[in-house]
């Protein structure tokens, strides 16, 4: 993870704010005068009477906009901060300690954008775990990519135990939330997560399907031998779809290992060996067809 501008970290193209001042500066640079006035007035209203957040919070997208906070972000980037999410965070910060009493109702009565706003704000608020963690858990039960991505910020990484975090990461892989946007994942990876991901790869290969190549660094960091052997065994399976899926998965593993540069030597050697195995299996499949 490399430092970029002050107050932000950058993780493979995803910028993650370190504090709400960084969000405030980024948002200020994107707002026009009417938006700025609206936000200033909204902040003073919720500071004076925290209950007013109930009707201010839903209006944020209309007043501030919904575009990415960083203009370079891709349209479908589920990890990217948006103008409305940043403004919602600043409003919740402005409420102060009373935010604990408002946040669950804001989430439960909120539409998808409001819920993302609450989840992204959690890392910047003093909210009791008994209030904030159930919201993260609720979002992780949905299959909405934006909600899942929003729920897995620094707040969740500091509070979910290894088992819950492993389930969350597996869910990301399953529904298609890119792992590269999850700050802190490298520090929280465990052997059990590597095993779960490898078993998932095996399951996909046995169904003749593909897997995202970003699972491989997490798997190869711990190299679960039984699970990897089960995947490699698919290279000689009688079913051609399974052999082909195994070739593709292991080829992406080798490519990922070569790209990563920091992959352990064994994984690279293993990858090369698997490439040869895959070639033989492919040749056999051609003869059969």
């Amino acid at each position, binding site marked *: 993870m490399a430092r970029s501008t002050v107050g932000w970290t950058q993780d493979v193209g995803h910028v993650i704010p370190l504090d709400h001042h960084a969000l405030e500066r980024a948002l200020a640079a994107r707002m026009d005068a009417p938006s700025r006035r609206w936000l200033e007035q909204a902040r003073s209203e919720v500071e004076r009477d925290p209950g007013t957040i109930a009707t201010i919070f*839903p209006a944020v997208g*209309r007043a501030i906009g919904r575009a990415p906070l960083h203009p370079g972000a891709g349209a479908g980037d589920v990890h990217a901060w948006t103008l409305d999410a940043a403004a919602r965070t600043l409003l919740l910060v402005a409420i102060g300690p009373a935010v604990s009493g408002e946040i669950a109702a804001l989430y439960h009565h909120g*539409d*998808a954008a409001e819920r993302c706003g609450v989840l992204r704000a959690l890392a910047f608020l003093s909210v009791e775990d008994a209030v904030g963690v159930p919201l993260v858990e609720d979002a992780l039960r*949905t*299959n909405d990519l934006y909600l899942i991505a929003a729920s897995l910020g620094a707040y969740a990484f500091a509070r979910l135990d290894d088992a819950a975090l492993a389930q969350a990461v597996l869910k990301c892989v399953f*529904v298609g939330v890119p792992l590269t946007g999850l700050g802190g994942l490298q520090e929280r990876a465990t052997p059990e997560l590597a095993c779960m991901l490898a078993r998932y790869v095996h399951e996909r290969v046995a169904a003749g399907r593909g897997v995202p190549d970003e699972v491989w660094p997490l798997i190869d960091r711990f190299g679960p031998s039984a699970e990897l052997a089960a995947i490699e065994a698919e290279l000689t399976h009688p079913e051609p779809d399974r052999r082909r899926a195994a070739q593709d998965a292991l080829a992406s593993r080798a490519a990922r290992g070569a790209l990563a540069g920091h992959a352990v030597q064994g994984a690279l050697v293993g990858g090369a060996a698997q490439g040869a195995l895959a070639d033989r299996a492919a040749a056999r499949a051609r003869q059969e067809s």
Partner: protein
Amino acid sequence: MRMFDPHIHMTSRTTDDYEAMALAGIEAIVEPAFWLGQPRSSLGSFVDYFDGLIGWERFRAGQFGIWHHCAMGLNPKEANDEPLAREVLDVLGRYLAKDRVVAVGEIGFDAMTGAEERAFEAQLELAAEHDLPVLVHTPHRDKLHGTVRSLELVAASPVAPERVLIDHNNELTFERVLASGCWCGFTIYPDTKMDERRLVSIVEAEGLERMIVNSAADWGRSDPLKVPKTAAAMRAAGFPEQEIERLVWHNPVALFGQSGRLELGEIVPALRATFAGNSILRGARPQ
């Protein structure tokens, strides 16, 4: 020609209806909150319904390229359960602040009770507070009396008549509504209320100013294609295209556009998209 159905309860309809509506040219709708054919017994049932109107139903409509908006309100029938009605009115403000909520509604009278009138007045106040237009249902029975009383309540309220739609009019009520400055809605039904032929006669005589036509299709016998069928009836009667489009598009856009929350851009139907991960393509997970 762009078409808008400004009163339709899609929660009660199928994806076949959405598909037929999209093919017939309907690009935008307003779904007013109403009752479900039987009374709800708790606030949670209302909240889940309101959440559905801004969530799953908006997503479903989008799958067919239709811009879904809604009106939020406590309907007249359930206003008569006053302890529950108070709870609903307490939470309503949150929902009146949501994106694509373009009116308070449908509110009004069913059996002309005191409880209905109190909920009506309270919701006119909420409309003023949230700067929203109002969609008023007029009763099936005692319609003229109910319409006249509704107009009196509107006149006594802080909401301007040009921001109010009085709906479900017939030959005996529409003149009073037009004279009041409110918008005049006609619901085209298979059997009751109004039909296409009668509607054509009325607009031939009265013109199109502040006239609105809708299907009010719901869980009862009704037809979600009544707006395009009315357009066809007007065409057969010799109305020029721009006049028809004024009735079935520009008028509802002008009325609900006063909310500042209409969203009418282009939707490309994305049949592979999901709402909270759940697709309308049952069984096959979108890839």
